[in-house]
């Protein structure tokens, strides 16, 4: 009984001592760290700005070819071609990387779903504005070879001459309805015809940012 009481007393003492020691260490270390904090600040510079990535499109401003995308294409016959002129501009401060183009049709029909008989689109570029006679004096470059409108349901990569900030791409859209071989017999149009159809197309350009940079200066 007496031995048991002694053991409890010793254990209690040990606990008290340990607690006190830990408290002391905490106080000491805390006061030591507080006294060792040092700061340094720059007194000039340090300005940070972020760039912008912007893309705009507008009809050509050359008289005679200002139709752009907003002007309707009507009564197209097999074999007909319509050319439209659009200026695509990187109006941001950052260079772009890849530019793609998609087209969404308000109504799906043979014009947009038939990859062979439906509408075909070719895109060319001129380093300067196209003339209203469809002439590119320095010589046109191909941005996209003839592609069916059907394919524009997915983004098509454009081969633009420049995508740096401020670059203006003078684009010529060549929209063609293939001649095909449709035959109307006694007033009846052939099955799956591209005749007598209509839809509205919305063209969306998308530009990605140039490769991120890491500078060291």
């Amino acid at each position, binding site marked *: 009984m007496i031995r048991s009481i002694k053991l409890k007393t010793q254990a209690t003492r040990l606990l008290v001592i340990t607690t006190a020691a830990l408290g002391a260490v905490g106080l000491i270390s805390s006061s030591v760290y507080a006294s060792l904090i040092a700061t340094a600040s720059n007194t000039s510079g340090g300005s940070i700005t972020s760039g912008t*990535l*912007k*893309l*705009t*499109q507008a009809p050509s401003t050359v008289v*005679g*070819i*200002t139709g*752009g*995308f*907003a002007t*309707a*294409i*009507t*009564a*197209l*016959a*097999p*074999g*007909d*071609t*319509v*050319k*439209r002129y*659009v200026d*695509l501009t*990187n109006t941001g401060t950052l260079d*772009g990387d890849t530019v793609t183009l998609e087209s969404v049709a308000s109504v799906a029909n043979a*014009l947009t779903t038939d990859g062979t008989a439906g*509408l075909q689109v070719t895109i060319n570029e001129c380093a300067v504005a196209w003339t*209203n006679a*469809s002439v590119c004096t320095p010589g046109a470059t191909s941005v996209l070879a003839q592609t069916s409108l059907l394919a524009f349901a997915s983004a098509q990569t454009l081969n633009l001459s420049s995508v740096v900030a401020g670059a203006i791409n003078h684009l010529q859209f060549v*929209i063609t*309805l293939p*001649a*095909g*071989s*449709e*035959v*109307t*017999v*006694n*007033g*009846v*149009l052939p099955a799956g015809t591209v*005749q*007598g*159809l*209509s*839809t*509205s*197309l*919305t*063209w*969306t*350009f*998308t*530009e*990605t*940012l140039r490769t991120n940079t890491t500078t060291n200066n």
Partner: protein
Amino acid sequence: MSRINAPLIIAFGLTLAGVVSAANAVPIATTASAATSVSTGTIIAYPSISTTGANPNGTALTLANTSLPQYFYVLNSGSIEIVSVTITISYSSTTAKKSFLHCGQNVLFAGTNTCASGIPVTVAGSGAVTLNLTPGSWYAFEIDAKKVVTPTISVSVSSAQIRAAINSNS
């Protein structure tokens, strides 16, 4: 032990996925155009017994069984100019005279072999006939088979028989 670690592992995994997702959010710029309205025309020609006849919707025209001169018309009710049509005429007699005549655009026959204006053009027989069939216009034809026959007339137009392709620039 496992009860404590499982949620921690899941939370860590979700955090990591969020970091990866944020890293993939490449900045892009887009610009969408105004809608381009596109419509196509129609190439529709058919034979009719009158200059205002309705579209037969595929049915060939059968004329009367007679030895007298008979007349029919080819109409363009489409929206695209047609420059030739293919006319196929079958007769109930193989010895019937196969040639036939037509007048100019929107010109009626005034009598046998006589146009109200201008001179009739002779067509040797079934086949392509060159016309200037603008939308809404018609041509009159005369068949004088010299025998009692029942001509049946079928008219077809292919996309190669329309006006020259237009290459517009706007």
